[in-house]
Each structure stands twice: as C-alpha cells, then as structure tokens.
C-alpha cells in the first residue's frame, strides 16, 4: 500500500462506485454508511424490465454492491455516524458505530426472528443478497422495548445494552456521497398522503414490490386496476423553493407503469403531468410506446382526496374542454422527487464546504461539481443535485479521477 487512504461518506450508488473504482489503485478505501446496509435508496428499486431491459440501472447497483462486498481492499463501516472531522495535514474522522451482529449464530437467530417476529422493524433485512450481514437488530427500536419483550422474540444471548463504539480514521481525502432525501409528501396536506392508504409514493410501491414481487397496493396487497400517477411531487415547485427538476421521476414512473401493465394487462393507468422528460437513450421510442398504453393528462390536479368507499378521487382541469373533471382511482401514486439530504448542513460544517441555494453541496465549477470548495474534500452523486443512477455513476467517475489526481496516484 502506498499509505494513502480515502474515506467515503455514504454507501449509496455514488459511494459504492467511488469505493470500487478507487480499490483498483493502491489506496486504502474506507466506506462509512449510516444505515445497517449498503446501497442507499438505489438498492431499494426493482428491475423495470418487461420483456426487454428498460435501462433503469437497478441491476448495476446490485452489481456494484457485489463488487464492493467481494473486494478485500474496501473496509466498510456500517451503522456509523461521523461526528467530527479534524483537518491537520490529513483528515481525522471520528465516528460512532452502533453494534452489529455479524457472527453466524447471531445472523441465524436474527433470520429466524425476522420471519417470526411480531414486532415490526425490530429486525431489519437487507435488500440484496450482497447486503452483508443480511440481518440487523434495529437499535432505535430496542430502546423502545423492554429486555423481556426482545428476548421473547430473539433467541440469542446478547448484550442489549451494548452501546455505540467510538472509532477514528485518518485519510488524505474525503468524498461526500451522502445522497438525497426523497420528498416527503406529508409536507403538503394537499396530497392527503397520510389520509388514505390508497395514496402512496412511488418509493412505497418499490419497497412493497421488493417484499411481494408484484406492484400491488402496499397497504392491502390488492391489484390497483385503476391507477393514477401524479408527477412532479416536490419537484419544479416554486412554493417550496424547489426550482429543480428531479430528473428521475418521469423515467421511473413510466417504467413502473409499464411493468404494472405487463403484470396486469387490464390495468388502466393515467399520468397527470406538466412536461414529460426524456427517458434513456431511445427516449422517443419509449415515450411513443407509453403514449399508446397510458392516458396522459397535462394538468397537476387541483384536488386529490379519499372517497368514503376507499377509492381516491382526483379533480383536474381538462385541457381540451376547459372543464373541471373528476375521476376515481384505486391507487394514486405520487412521483416524489429528490431533495437535499437532511444532514447536509451538519456535514457541510464538519467538512467546511458550502451548500448552494437549493440545499445541495456546492461544486467548485459549473462543469465539474466533483470538486468542493475545500481542498481534499470531494463530492459525488446526488449530493450536488438530482441525478439518475447512471448519472450518479458518471459523476462519481469524475470524482474518482479528481481524487486520483489530487493524491498523485501512480
């Protein structure tokens, strides 16, 4: 080893890509993830192929996670929270790590408890077979339960009061790859997200498909024969100061709709939208296919409300007739967008870098946002703004090149 070390904060697609690419060079790589599992949001998405691949890139996340899991050069620190970053010549990072039960017996007990546990969210399972360890004991949940309650579920003799461990690292460079926060529709009462189980976010739908294998109503597992997608939820919204297009919602929503219809050909799907964005390399063809299968209504509804019978009605202004129309749906899917990470301000202070007017990290140049304004601190993926998986990977490649140049890797 050259003695050079890089620490990456965040184990989503950007962090994984950075770690994997850097591992090809003579560099010690540390990957710090605050969750129990690597993969970030991207690992929670499903393959969107119908008969053919639709280039959603979900499988590349799986592949990158496998690469990282198999690499002997990458040291992963799960359930770890960075608390202090000191800059002398190098960066000294201090983080606390929650207990992880990775032993074979521990994992077997957790697996058993996962399938039988009546207490939801006590045992967590990764999204991929490459999430290792695959099962975790949710420390946040433990604090809400008594020892007896836990012991009744988990047949394992462990110290439940084990506290987080303090650890430290020393690196020449730091990559911020902490990702984004999906827009929370509860912030706008208009969507009635909390008031009906038939109003869900696309992320809810993805997570439920991971579990059930099909796109069903996450709350009751029913097939939603009549489904509406509402685009631009939390994006392109001046009221929130969200003056950006999230870039991913048109692609994912249309791809989800295609898969839903291939699972149930009688499904009737409507899109409420402002503008449909380009989707992949062969966008015109894809969009044309979608137009032949779904109804597109160019209007963001004026009202989305649950009916007494459980369905959801949407009122919208019809472009053709200029009339306000009303329609009922079994399921309304909110295509939520990308917003800045919750922890951005704290991380910016720790790393001494700036946040831009939108709340994402500020890159040094307009054409190259991999460089932060702080020497030795680099930015990757959606930390600098909305990006698809493919664009996050490309952006991270650039970050890796900048890190290599900065370290003078031979």
């Amino acid at each position: 080893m050259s003695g050079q070390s890089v620490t990456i904060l965040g184990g989503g697609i950007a962090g994984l890509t950075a770690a994997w690419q850097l591992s090809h060079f003579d560099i010690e790589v540390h990957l710090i993830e605050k969750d129990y599992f690597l993969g970030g949001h991207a690992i929670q998405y499903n393959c969107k192929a119908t008969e053919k691949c639709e280039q959603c890139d979900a499988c590349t996340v799986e592949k990158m996670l496998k690469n990282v899991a198999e690499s002997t050069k990458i040291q992963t620190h799960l359930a770890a929270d960075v608390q202090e970053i000191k800059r002398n010549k190098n960066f000294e990072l201090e983080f606390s790590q929650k207990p992880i039960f990775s032993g074979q017996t521990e994992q077997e007990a957790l697996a058993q408890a996962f399938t039988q546990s009546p207490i939801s969210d006590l045992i967590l399972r990764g999204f991929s077979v490459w999430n290792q360890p695959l099962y975790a004991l949710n420390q946040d949940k433990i604090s809400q339960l008594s020892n007896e309650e836990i012991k009744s579920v988990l047949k394992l003799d462990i110290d439940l009061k084990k506290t987080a461990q303090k650890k430290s690292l020393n690196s020449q460079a730091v990559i911020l790859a902490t990702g984004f926060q999906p827009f929370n529709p509860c912030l706008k009462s208009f969507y009635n997200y909390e008031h009906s189980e038939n109003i869900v976010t696309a992320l809810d739908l993805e997570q439920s498909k991971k579990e059930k294998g099909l796109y069903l109503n996450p709350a009751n597992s029913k097939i939603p024969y009549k489904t509406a997608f509402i685009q631009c939820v939390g994006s392109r919204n001046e009221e929130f100061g969200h003056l950006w297009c999230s870039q991913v919602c048109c692609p994912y929503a249309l791809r989800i709709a295609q898969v839903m219809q291939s699972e149930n050909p009688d499904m009737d799907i409507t899109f409420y939208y402002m503008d449909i964005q380009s989707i992949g390399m062969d966008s015109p063809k894809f969009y044309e296919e979608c137009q032949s299968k779904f109804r597109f209504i160019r209007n963001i509804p004026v009202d989305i409300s649950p009916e007494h019978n459980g369905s959801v009605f949407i009122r919208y202004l019809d472009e053709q007739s200029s009339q306000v129309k009303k329609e009922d749906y079994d399921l309304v899917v909110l295509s939520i967008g990308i917003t800045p990470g919750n922890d951005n301000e704290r991380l910016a202070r720790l790393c001494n870098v700036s946040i831009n007017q939108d709340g994402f990290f500020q890159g040094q140049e307009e054409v190259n946002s991999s460089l932060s304004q702080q020497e030795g601190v680099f930015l990757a993926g959606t930390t600098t703004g909305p990006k698809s998986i493919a664009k996050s990977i490309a952006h991270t490649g650039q970050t890796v090149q900048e890190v290599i140049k900065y370290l003078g890797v031979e």
Partner: protein
Amino acid sequence: MTEQEPHLIMTDLSTDILVIGKGWSGVKTAQEISDQGYHVLMIDEEILGSENIPNYKMLERLNSSQPDKPSISFQEFDNIKDIEYLEGTRLIRCQGMPGNFSLKLAQGTEQFEKQVGAIVVATDYIRTSLFEDYGLQSSEKVISQSQLEIMLDSEKKEETKLSKTNNVAFVVGFGQEGNPLVMHRIMRCVQDLEDLSCQAYIYVKNIKVAAEGLERLYRDNRQKGAIYFKLSEGPKIAPDGQSITSYDPILDKEIELYPDLIVIEESFQSNPTHYRLSEILGIDIGPWGFLQENNVHRFPVTTNRQGIYVTGSSREVMNLSDMTKDAANVAVEIKKFLANGSKELLEYIGIVDKDKCCFCLTCFRCCPHRAIYLEDKPVISSIACQGCGICASECPQDAIQIVAYRDETIKEKLKKEIDQTKNELYPTIIAFCCENSSFESGMAAQAFQYALPPGLRMIKVPCAGKVDIDYLFTAFTQGADGVMVLACHEGNCQSVRGNTFAQQRVKNLHHLLEEVGLSKERLFFKTLASNMPHQFRQYSFQLEDTLNKIGKNPITS
C-alpha cells in the same frame, strides 16, 4: 488437450492513446488522459483551428452567464505537451488486441501505422435545423436556432436583424421529442433577447428541464416576461413566417401572433462517420447512430470491446458538464486498464484445440468482444476475452474450452446434481443460470428463505451464451425432469447476444425433444435480472407445476 491451470504472465501494454475527434469531448478527454501520464495522439478528419471547433461556441454560450468558464480552452490545449495532434487524418484500419492495437491512419494520400494501447472515440454530434418538419424554409423571417445564436453573439448586433426585432417566436418539441440541451439553448437565447427588450414567445410540447439549472432558468425566462405556450399539437405557421397561430383551450379560441422572427428548433444527430468507425473498431452502434449500445453495463464510457471507449458527444446528446464527466471516466477506465504499461494477465482464459479446429471461423464471427485473432488457428486473447463462452458453445467442432467453465466440469456437476435429486426429490429441475443475473436472483431467493422446489438445482454459467446444446441434452439424458435456461433480459447481456444464442438453442432443442418423444414443456427459456428473486421462485414453481402434470422424464424412468 492440456488441463493445466493458466499462469499469470507480465504483459507489456502500450501507453499511447488514440483519441478520435477534436471537439470539446475529445479535447477534454485528451487532457484528462494526459493528466494521468499517458501520451495522446489525437486525430480529426477535418482541419480545425481553435476558432472553428464544431459545437464549441454553441456549448460555451450556455455557460456564458456563469463566472466559471469551461476548465479548458482550445488555446491551452494546443500547449499541452503530451498531446500530439494530426489534422485531416482518419483511421482506416484497426488490428491487434487491446493494449496493443495496430492502427493504420491516413493523412491526405499518406498512410502510416501507429501502435496504441487504447482508443477513445470522441466524435461530435451534428446539428440540423428542422425547417422541413414545420413545412418551412429558411427565410427573412424564419431562421434557425444557430442563426439566432450567431446574431446574439455578434459584436455589432445593431447591424443584424435583431436591431429591428421586437418579438421572437420559438417553436420546439414538435419536430422531434427534444432533450434538455435543445431546451437549454432556447432558454439561454430567450434570456439574451429579453435583455435586449425583445419579447419572446415559446411554443413547446414538453419543456425538457431534466438537467441542472434548467428549471431555474425557465423561471427566470418567465420572470423577464417570456411567454410559454404549452401545446400538444404544433402551432400553424404561415409559409412566409408572417404569423403563428395556436389554439388556447382556456380561452377556447385561436390566438394569432405576428412575430418579427420565428426561430425553428435544431436537433442533434450522431456523427455520420459512426457507421464506418463501428465497423473498423468492431464496436456496436446504439440508438440513433450513436456509438454506444443501449446497455446499462456499458454506461458511462465502455463498449463491447476492452480498451475502446466512447466519450461525450459520440455516445449521446449531452452538455459540457456531462462531457466533462465522461472525459474523467475515460481517464479512470484507461488507468485501470493500462496501469503503468504492464499488467499481470492470465496466460489464457479460453483455449482452442488446434487438432479439432477446422478453421470455420464461427468463433471469430460470434465473439461479441472481438477477442479472437487468427494465427495458424484462432487464438483467444486473454486481455480481450471476457469469458462469456459463446464461442465455446457455438463451435461446431467442440474445439474451444473456457478454463473456468470446462465442458467436462459442467457435465460432471450436472450429473452429480441430478443423481442426488432424481430419486428422492421429484421433479428434478436443472436451472442454467447466468452468473450476472439469474444466478444472483437464485442465491437471493435462497438467502431470503423463499420456498423453492426441493428438486431444483442451479448450474452457474458465465453467460447464458455458454449453455451448450449438449448441456441441455446431458441434463435430460441424465434424468432431469425439467430444465430452465435463465438469461439476462434482452438488451442487458454483458456479452451482447449471449441471451439470444441461448434462446435460439432452446428453440432448436424443442424440435428435437418432440422428435424423441419428450414434451417440449420440459424445457423453457426465461429472462431475469440479478435482483429478481421473486420471479426466480415464480418460474421455478411454474416449471414444477408443469412437470407435476406431465410426469417423470420417460428416458430414465
């Protein structure tokens, strides 16, 4: 045939890199590669001075409101030592293997040879004005996007039409679907026009704002007074450009405007040299003639061949910021591939048995990675080979073995798995699984403790294209009740066509199975991704159900 395991051998690789195309993508990529210490040879078929680089001005003006200019200027590039530039030069032949390509280049009538370790295609896209799509011709009142940009950039604007222009109409999205770059150009011009107190009207289908900064620019446009008409059908434009008419659904009437200028959108098309380059370089062409297949495993900058990369405008319509990312990605890939000019490589990944080979060249033709070259018999290059095994399964003489997946080993494994299941765990199902997709899904299904048919056994292959028809036969003759071949989805195979080869073989075998009295339902082909454990389970049970209906494999019972 030798059963020896291959050794690692130190191999010398050339650290000279060929970059094709002197546009912004080419220059930026050359600079990044050069920063990694490699020597770059750049060629362009045209003779280009720093002033007439295609698309450069167009791209740069999109950033001109920003204090940060692109991080390289062409003058600067001319001074970089490790970049050698040959103008008016084209590639006419590429032979050899990655790490040591032998090129033939032509400059005018002169031809010469070069050795390079890697090749980067950085050709520019071409801009076309879409007058015809609107049934119009360029005229006094009807101009292209480029013509408008030239006027706006002119130092003497008062001498252009703009001095007499009070309002301008743009039409976009009706001649083509469009993309953020097309939209960005218009929004930038709208901003400039409004600064000149010109009223801008934009007739648009879908406002493509899926790029950094565009939604904000769209807001800025409207704040300055620009008016956007979002229509589903294009407006009617008088042939002389005197008027433009659209239907307003809110007012329920036609609105007619008389703009001083009508600006017609432009589209970006792939460089016409791509078909020739694709043939010379042996790389697959993608949608719309761009030089990258639409396959997620290639993104961002790789191709079906090792050591050949595509960057920026050669692979997609993109802006400066995305081109910059590509440039850096190419440099990282090259550094991974060539390192410092020597690399430990396996002696061989696949071997051709020279006694069996009849020189039919099937392997040479079917290799998706162009990893086979010809000496007295075909040789599989271990630097180019990606181990998919398509050649081994297609070889009519059975002359090729992939070291990590020898036929004998696979057949032994098959026999063992079938023997272990066939009497106790009916039905015995053999699943041939591509290690990139269905094998992962199968592993996940097991790890997640999904119930699977007890007699199901997976046989891992490097690519579905490795599933030899002989394996399928062997499975049935050994006593498997059913066989699944689980490949990657169409368009997702890392070896381009491995899934298609597998599907074809399954089809062929269906005919043969019926001839020997076996139901063809015993064998099926499905596609899966690596993250589909549910579908893996579903397909397994689907076959189990079928087998429960049709009974045991009659060959062995």
